[in-house]
């Protein structure tokens, strides 16, 4: 039961010791039902703030978030979040982790277990249901976290650099897995990333953000044929898209670097 996400004119300021910091300014974007959209931007462009605003974890912003046309405030059952950091519960097994949101909702034990087992299979962790996170690789833990979010059956899947801590090869292969899951569930997905390859490999549309304050710089449609696999990185079309995005992103990344470097040295 996927839904459509609309972000309307979002602005967010943070109070810092040096005065108000504009993290986001007038950000608008739309993820139509069942589409995969990525947001890419340099460090400090406010993309994680946007993730927090849409997911309802960051309060006090201007603008509106709409799901299927209805404005929402705060956390919402229709939105599922996958975090960048290690977020599996170390005291629960893979299966128990996935059952977590269902337990919280008081779903009957065996129904809950059944759904969790299907998800273990979907994310390719068959045979690891009874393992603890510490016994798994980083990629497997992140797949557990994704399955846990999907277990709650959100209309919209929101991910903040879920593969950032993983190496490039694992990331490409997990991208394939993610695409396979996305095809199966036709899940409306908004992915925050700083990897151009990842954005192009997965998305229908890539949104490039500017360095502070974060605005939308450009929206680039990714017209590569589907179904895709990570082998697509070899194609010339893929290379051209990466080039186009890098052209836009480079300016912003340089601007970010110029502003943070002197501070970075003095710290």
């Amino acid at each position, binding site marked *: 039961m996927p839904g459509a996400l609309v972000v309307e004119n979002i602005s967010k300021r943070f109070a810092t010791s040096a005065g108000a910091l504009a993290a986001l300014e007038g950000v608008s974007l739309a993820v139509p039902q069942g589409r995969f959209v990525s947001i890419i931007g340099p460090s400090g462009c406010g993309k994680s703030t946007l993730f927090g605003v849409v997911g*309802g*974890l960051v309060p006090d912003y201007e603008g509106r978030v709409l799901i299927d046309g209805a404005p929402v405030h705060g*956390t919402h*059952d229709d939105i599922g979040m996958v975090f960048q950091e290690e*977020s599996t*519960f170390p*005291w*629960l097994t893979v299966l128990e982790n996935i059952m*977590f949101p269902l337990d*919280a909702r008081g779903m009957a034990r065996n129904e809950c277990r059944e759904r969790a087992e299907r998800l273990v299979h979907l994310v390719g962790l068959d045979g690891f249901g009874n393992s603890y996170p510490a016994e798994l690789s980083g990629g497997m833990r992140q797949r557990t976290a994704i399955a846990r979010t999907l277990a709650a059956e959100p209309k919209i899947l929101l991910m903040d650099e879920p593969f950032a801590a993983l190496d490039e090869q694992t990331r490409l292969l997990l991208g394939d897995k993610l695409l396979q899951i996305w095809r199966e569930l036709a899940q409306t997905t908004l992915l925050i990333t700083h990897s151009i390859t990842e954005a192009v490999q997965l998305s229908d549309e890539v949104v490039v953000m500017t360095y502070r304050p974060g605005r939308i710089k450009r929206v680039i449609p990714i017209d590569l044929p589907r179904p895709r696999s990570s082998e697509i990185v070899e194609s010339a079309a893929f290379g051209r898209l990466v080039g186009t995005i890098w052209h836009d992103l480079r300016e912003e990344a340089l601007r970010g670097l110029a502003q943070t470097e002197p501070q970075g040295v003095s710290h």
Partner: protein
Amino acid sequence: MATTLTNFNRAPLHWFAPVTRVRALTLLAAALVWEGVARSGWLYEGVVPPLTAVARAFVVLLVTGDTYHHLAVTAWEVAAGFGIGLVAGIAFGILMGARPFFGRAMAPYVDGLATAPKIIFLPIVMLLFGVGITSKIALGALSAFFPVTLNTAAGMHGISPVLIRVGRSFRLSRAQMVRMIYLPALRGSIIVSMRLGLGVAIIGVLLAEIKLADRGLGFLAIDHYNQFRIPDMYALLLFIFILAIGANVLIGRLSPRR
């Protein structure tokens, strides 16, 4: 200290291992010095009674039903005091960790009172609860509360913030947050709290009993002292010592996994 104690208790050693022999010899030497002093007449008679007298008193103590009556009183006081202090300390520690502003506001008082000897509260506790069992439980609870609170609050700081955000994103209620995230994440801290808390709860209860009571092991010890039944007193101290080690070993068994 608790850790070293459990560590050497767990180490599988043979009787003939060098370290075991040194330990046995130390004990033997201490016993010989004791016996020597007892027979020398250097000290006032009865201050250091012969070991045979202590051993006899120990056997008598073990077969006297009255001992177990006092033990039951003390055990109940310790268990109730420790239980109350543990639950209250965990709740307060979680509150301090979950509400950073509240935690910062309370920190100087908790830190200050944690280092203060709890015996100074005995007069107040006696005024409030009388000289019976309740005042002993109160002092035990007061003793256990502070180390448990400090450890739980420190454990709260150690919880990865992303786990809290996961809980919020799944829209957990406050009670679910405590039951499904805080408590399991605090397991290790709570076990350490239990070790420290039980130790100080025993101290608190015995101190209160020694000061003013009509039953309990602490009362029995001070009663022997007052009647100058010194071998009985030593036998009882040995009995308490063995019980305290036993309690420590039992708590040590609950080791933090994962």
